[in-house]
């Protein structure tokens, strides 16, 4: 701490003590407060030059008393009451009178707090007066902090003092029966001061942010005076735990960052530790009050290293207790979020509905904002968008407005792609979720991965929760051990495990319903296998050109081809094996042979808005690099076993899932399409013809999205 800062700190802590002493001696809070302000100003001007006096409290007391006397004298002279002055003469010298040592001063601070938070005053007057009389801040500083002209603030403070005078309140502790009520008012005022500073965005408003430090300073002082009051402790803990997040709560541009998206490494560990210790201790000896419970909730949030580690059941039980101790629609609002995290968004939305008729919250932007968030989680994106916009319109906070508008605008699939991983036996799956609504699972074929579906997924994301993933061994889904031959059965189990994991997550309500599944090429075989094995998880399977080679009339030939590919891979490596396979398939001789979509086609589809002339996006270029790595795995460990896979057609016929087989308009005669036509015949279903070839999902993403939407039905 610099000398100047130390001097200011000293001044501000002495201010209420000096004022208390003066008021006790002379009675007039109004006049004494002005006198102390003048003494503080004099000290601020003189001390830096002359040095801090040996007895700073005595110095301030002397100066303030002189000012007070001057003031009385001039008024008295005017009123010809000179005689009265003698009674107010201060004791000579700067030494405090006996009994005016620190403890008395400390009690005075408490008495002053009670006086400044007098029930006759409006909350904003209580705040202003507390900051001046107890906090020792100047009117100009307070005015800047509340963004009003200094004259306005001066008038507010002067009016507040007149009010107190008019009530005839004496300087002394309120009677015991009023104390609890008055202490609540004091705590509320400190909380208001804290919030005024905490909610101020960073940057140009550092002035205002200083209010949090001031509120914490006052709360500390109050805690030192009343260490046995659980709510005082609770408020101090709540302030510390909340203030700990300050650096992480806005981005460089002042945009608000929600709790779940904050960089937790930027939270202030010292404040968290102190706040947590305070609240943990208080709860062992104090009946839980509202500030303690809020602090406890903040502490539970603070102890989670990652948002997903948050102990939501505990938070929910704390909110339940809070709504019991201090019923309040704002508590219910927060409780709804906790309910949603524990029991799913619909349970949270149900609780919110109880607030629609409460005039304190109906039309409040927080209600609309929480509703929007829960609707988004539940996958009802159009309703979520509408609720975010309602919230943005009803807030009077510019940062909140910007945040809510950004959320509303961001509710399209491409921008809200979220990536996750799922551990499965022997591998870790990378999967991506876009949008919200009924689940659509996309299973890619061949050498491709989740990224190949980005165009299709984005188009579907306005109505569905679109899930795509990298199959095990490919791209970002590494195997635990070295590469080994893959099986359609295991890959179908992976798809099933992924659907189960989504269904188990309360955040995804629709995921408890059977999913819509689309697969292309080998992904189509996996999708069909999934429908045969786990019909309960699948509502509709759309299989685009599954290369079911054993169904072809020349199945023997294909068995030989696969054996040859296997041997070539072992002897000559992936390049030679791939070349042989491509020639046999009669489609391409490039890396993506079996799956048809050339790199150019995929780029076109993946870039979405871009036409064929558009340069591939960085994501697409990354995918190309992954595809190259996948090619060896595909030809060596997938093609031979996948190509021999015999689908259980009887099981599929008996499956409750609807089966739709699709053939490309441009891939007539190619082996996968021929196999598709035979499979359709055996299963007794008709084949739909969609634009594009074997890789139509990428080249004709828009047509695919429209047709899938028709098949799945609009949610």
């Amino acid at each position, binding site marked *: 701490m610099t000398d100047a800062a130390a001097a200011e700190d000293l001044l501000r802590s002495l201010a209420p003590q000096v004022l208390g002493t003066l008021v006790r001696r002379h009675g007039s809070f109004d006049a004494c407060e002005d006198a102390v302000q003048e003494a503080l100003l004099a000290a601020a001007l003189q001390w830096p030059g002359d040095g801090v006096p040996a007895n700073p409290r005595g110095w301030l007391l002397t100066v303030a008393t002189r000012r007070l006397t001057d003031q009385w004298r001039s008024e008295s002279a005017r009123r010809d009451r000179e005689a009265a002055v003698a009674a107010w003469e201060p004791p000579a010298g700067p030494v405090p009178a006996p009994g005016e040592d620190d403890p008395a001063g400390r009690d005075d601070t408490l008495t002053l707090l009670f006086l400044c938070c007098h029930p006759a005053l409006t*909350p904003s007057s209580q705040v202003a007066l507390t900051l001046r009389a107890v906090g020792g801040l100047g009117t100009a500083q307070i005015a800047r902090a509340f963004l009003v*002209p200094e004259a*306005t603030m001066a008038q507010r*403070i002067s*009016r507040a003092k007149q009010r107190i005078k008019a009530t005839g309140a004496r300087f002394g502790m309120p009677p015991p029966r009023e104390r609890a009520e008055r202490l609540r008012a004091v705590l509320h005022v400190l909380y208001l001061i804290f919030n005024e500073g905490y909610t101020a965005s960073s940057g140009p408003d550092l002035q205002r942010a200083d209010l949090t430090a001031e509120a914490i300073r006052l709360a500390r002082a109050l805690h030192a005076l009343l260490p046995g009051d659980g709510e005082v402790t609770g408020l101090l803990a709540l302030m510390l735990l909340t203030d700990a997040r300050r650096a992480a709560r806005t981005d460089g541009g002042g945009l*608000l960052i*929600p709790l779940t998206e904050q960089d937790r490494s930027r939270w202030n560990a010292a404040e968290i530790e102190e706040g947590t210790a305070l609240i943990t201790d208080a709860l062992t000896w104090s009946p839980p009050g509202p500030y303690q419970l809020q602090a406890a909730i903040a502490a539970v949030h603070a102890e989670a290293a990652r948002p997903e580690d948050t102990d939501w059941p505990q938070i929910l039980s704390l909110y339940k207790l809070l709504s019991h101790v201090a019923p309040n629609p704002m508590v219910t609002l927060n409780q709804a979020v906790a309910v949603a995290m524990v029991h799913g968004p619909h349970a949270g939305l149900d609780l919110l509905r109880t607030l629609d008729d409460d005039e304190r919250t109906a039309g409040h932007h927080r209600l609309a904002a929480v509703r929007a968030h829960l609707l988004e989680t539940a996958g009802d994106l159009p309703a979520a968008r509408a609720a975010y916009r309602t919230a943005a319109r009803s807030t*009077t*906070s510019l940062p909140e407005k910007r945040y809510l508008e950004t959320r509303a605008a961001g509710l399209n699939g491409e921008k809200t792609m979220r990536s996750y991983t799922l551990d499965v036996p022997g591998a870790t799956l990378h999967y991506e979720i876009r949008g919200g609504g009924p689940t659509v699972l996309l299973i890619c074929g061949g050498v491709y991965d989740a990224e190949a579906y980005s165009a299709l997924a984005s188009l579907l994301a306005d109505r569905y929760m679109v899930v795509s993933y990298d199959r095990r061994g490919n791209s970002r889904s590494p195997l635990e051990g070295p590469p080994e031959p893959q099986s359609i059965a295991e890959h179908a189990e992976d798809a099933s495990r992924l659907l189960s994991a989504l269904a188990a997550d309360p955040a995804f309500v629709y995921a408890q319903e059977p999913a819509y599944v689309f697969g292309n090429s080998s992904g189509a075989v996996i999708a069909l296998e999934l429908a045969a094995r786990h019909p309960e998880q699948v509502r509709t399977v759309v299989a685009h050109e599954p290369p079911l080679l054993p169904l072809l009339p020349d199945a023997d030939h294909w068995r030989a081809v696969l054996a040859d590919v296997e041997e070539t891979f072992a002897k000559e490596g992936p390049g030679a094996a791939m070349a042989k396979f491509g020639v046999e398939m009669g489609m391409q001789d490039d890396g993506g042979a079996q799956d048809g979509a050339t790199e150019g086609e995929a780029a076109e589809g993946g870039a979405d808005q871009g036409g064929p002339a558009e340069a591939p996006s960085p994501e697409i270029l990354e995918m190309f690099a992954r595809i190259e790595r996948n090619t060896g795995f595909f030809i060596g460990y997938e093609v031979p076993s996948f190509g021999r896979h015999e689908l259980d057609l009887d099981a599929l016929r008996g499956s409750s899932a609807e089966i739709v087989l699709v053939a490309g308009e441009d891939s007539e005669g190619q082996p996968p399409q021929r196999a598709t036509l035979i499979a359709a015949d055996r299963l007794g279903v008709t084949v739909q013809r969609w634009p594009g070839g074997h890789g139509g999902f990428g080249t004709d993403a828009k047509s695919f999205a429209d047709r899938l939407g028709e098949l799945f039905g609009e949610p």
Partner: protein
Amino acid sequence: MKYMLLIFNRPGFVEELSQAERDELFGEVQTIMKELTESGELVGGEALADPTRTRTVRARDGLPAVTDGPFLEAKEHLAGYVTVDCETPERAVEIASRWPDVRFGGYMEVRAVLGDGGTEM
């Protein structure tokens, strides 16, 4: 919470008033301003000059183009504003209701001012 009270009236309506009415109008405004100053609610305010002095800037073919006017004879115009910082929206409406222009055919709009503070969502 800060509110801006926008004062709309018909341009020139003051000229049609009698001297006594004019005195009453300005007297009332002065009284309210004095009260708001004393209560510590007044943040600021301005009266706007006659709309004939208005210049309007619009984009034309992508470039800003300036025109005189609008010259609206009969319609209301924005005549001025007062910003107050008060405890409740009801109090802001109460202040607006007392504005004398309302009695003379004008109207007041009470608009909440966007603040720069916000809570984590």
